[in-house]
């Protein structure tokens, strides 16, 4: 994937983070975040706010922000437990930026995403990284098949799908599905399964390598959301350890708690530094960026999940009520890190790099 060299300074990044955090604190306060996540009106309002801030344009123009900035915003959304599908917009922007010139459908979808009038949901299907994610095919100009594990399908105005093609991959832009079925579980809001039966759609052809890069960026965005949620959950546990007294002393004075939390900080820092390194490698157009990204994903998966487990242990029953903030971080972290192939795929990618593909063509 091509991308221009980033010109964003560390100060500008801090400003961006503060702005997004401030906006979310005002418009997506932690109180009621669970209820709002399943309230279509609230989801629409936060989407409008993100668009007004220019955030739904991220990825469209590298001058306005590279992958470092994209991950930073994803991290803030994770921190605030805001499930707005920003990275879906980012992926469409990246697709459009990289020469979908002939693709009018892509350009108009971008415009609508930038103005906040459209919301995209992405179904990677056969390119998901998870063998159970389904697939769609093109038949007689229409799209048919099913894709699973799609986020934010309920609020989407457009579905972005991918079809294997002889010369690469066809991007499918559909403004409706034949059916959208919520598949409840750990993820909140629930993931969905989409079915298409000869659905009309705009088609854009891209090289397969670009889709692989796009899927890798989607995974990094998910990991960044999980990082934000894990960081927030950890801060709650840390605060708790400094104020909660048992056996006549702060529980944070016990080395059993201190070492647990010290290891959590190591995991958070390790995940953040490696995610940043992979984004920097992407922004600087280093050819091996997907390998660094695979390392970030392979580490962040188990590490951030352990952080939220340890945070829960430290909080005890106080963080165990669904009405508390902790459970939604627990859910977000697991959902974001298990999707799109999760840690197994990331490790396999590193093994492919180090050892060659598992079964070479004979």
């Amino acid at each position, binding site marked *: 994937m091509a991308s221009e060299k980033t010109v964003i300074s560390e100060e500008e990044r801090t400003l961006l983070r503060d702005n997004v955090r401030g906006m979310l604190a005002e418009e997506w306060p932690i109180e009621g975040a669970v209820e709002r996540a399943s309230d279509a009106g609230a989801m629409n309002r936060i989407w409008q706010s993100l668009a007004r801030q220019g955030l739904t344009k991220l990825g469209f123009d590298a001058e306005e922000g590279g992958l470092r900035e994209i991950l930073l915003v994803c991290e803030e959304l994770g921190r605030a437990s805001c499930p707005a599908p920003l990275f879906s917009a980012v992926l469409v922007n990246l697709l459009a930026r990289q020469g979908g010139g002939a693709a009018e459908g892509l350009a108009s979808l971008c415009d609508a995403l930038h103005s906040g009038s459209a919301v995209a949901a992405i179904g990677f299907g056969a390119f998901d990284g998870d063998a159970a994610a389904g697939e769609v095919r093109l038949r007689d100009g229409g799209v048919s098949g099913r894709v699973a594990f799609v986020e934010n399908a309920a609020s989407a105005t457009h579905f972005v799908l991918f079809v294997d093609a002889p010369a690469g991959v066809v991007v499918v832009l559909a403004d409706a599905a034949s059916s959208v079925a919520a598949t409840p579980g750990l993820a909140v809001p629930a993931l969905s399964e989409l079915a298409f039966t000869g659905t009309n759609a705009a088609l854009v052809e891209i090289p397969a390598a670009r889709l692989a890069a796009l899927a890798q960026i989607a995974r990094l965005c998910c990991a960044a959301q999980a990082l934000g949620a894990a960081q927030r959950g950890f801060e709650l546990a*840390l605060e708790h*350890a*400094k104020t909660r007294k048992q056996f006549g002393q*702060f529980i*944070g*004075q016990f*080395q059993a*708690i*201190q*070492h647990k*939390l*010290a*290891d959590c*900080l*190591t995991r958070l*820092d*390790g*995940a953040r*530094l*490696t995610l940043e*390194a992979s984004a*920097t*490698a992407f922004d*600087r157009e*280093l050819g*091996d960026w997907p*390998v*660094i990204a*695979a*390392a*970030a*994903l*392979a*580490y962040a998966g188990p590490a951030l999940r352990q952080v939220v487990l340890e945070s829960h242990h430290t909080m005890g029953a106080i963080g165990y009520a669904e009405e508390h903030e902790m459970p939604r971080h627990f859910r977000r972290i697991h959902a974001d890190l298990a999707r799109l192939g999760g840690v*197994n795929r*990331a*490790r*396999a*990618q*590193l*093994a492919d*790099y*180090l*050892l*060659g593909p*598992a*079964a070479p063509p004979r």
Partner: protein
Amino acid sequence: MTTLPAFDLDPAVSAFRREVREWLAVHWHGEREAMHNRRPFKDRGYDPEFSRLVGAKGWIGLGWPKEFGGQARSPAEQLAFIEEMEYAHAPRSHLVGETIVGPALMRHGTPEQRAKYLPAILRGEMTFALGYSEPEAGSDLASLRTRAERDGEDWVINGQKLWSTGGDKAEHVWLAVRTDRDAKPKHAGISVFIVSLRQAGITIRPSIAMYGKTFSATFYENVRVPASAMVGGVNNGWKVITDALAAERVMIGGAVAALQRSLDHLTEYVKRAEIGGRPLRENAVIRDRLGALAAEIEVARQFALRNARLVEAGHTPLYEAAMTKVFAGELQERLGEAALDILGSGGLLSEDAPSAPVGEMEQVLRHSIMGVIGGGTAEIQRNIIAIRGLGLPR
């Protein structure tokens, strides 16, 4: 060899890295390295002659200020140098002098001490061992008991030091002693001396540590040294020691490069080995394990790079350095253990066994304990992260 992509964001660092690699190809790899590796294992890693070559090249004291004869290279360049040296397994007999004694003398030494030691350290002509730990003073270094007592113009030292790496080979010891028995707190009564290990009254008893090289117990019996051997003044030793620790923080990155080298060798073996006619590299469990280890080595490298960035920005990485040490140390344990699982019984064989698949791995495993317990145990490092990094109450 397929290794994880290491990229330097600064072209000057990449250029320097290349220069180091090319220099090592000429001056280390080849006959000198082959000769070194013909020595018994316990004598490897120590080569004062090679140190003089590095010194002549100007690559000792890379980070030292120019006024003291250093090159004032950036922390990122220092890290790149350490990584290349470690990856090449090039011996650095001058390490304690360069990273602990030299920086301490620049800050706390007298003009005479600086003139006597700094140029010799830079030339690679002077070797030091550390005299810190004692039978009753390990993690709690401040309770050390080896004492120095004033006698006229001299000091007379009595006591015992333990676990001194290179203690049987170095010419000098950087020695922490008690000069005030009643000091409260305990660390307010400590002073530091530079003492020749060839001096009357010193007995050195080397023993083999589990990683296959020596460490020494050193006994001091009425060892007489002049007042000019003391560094930083009476009872000011704790500050001298802790300031010196700050100067070694960038060095931790070297351990990560050594891990990278071991993983690369393990990977090379897996790439070409066959078990029962099937390529080992197709084994899904092994692929998963190697993928996980590669990711962790990348993370360790990012920790080391952060330390360098912090030093560059004028900060002293404190909990960040502790984090790097814990992570890299425990990662070496995981790497050694994983190698045993991957190699099976063959992983038990050392490089002395001709049929060993990757003979270095069992040594990597034995060595790993040192990284976890040496230079401040993992528990002490976690205390630092908790107290200094997280602000948890004592």
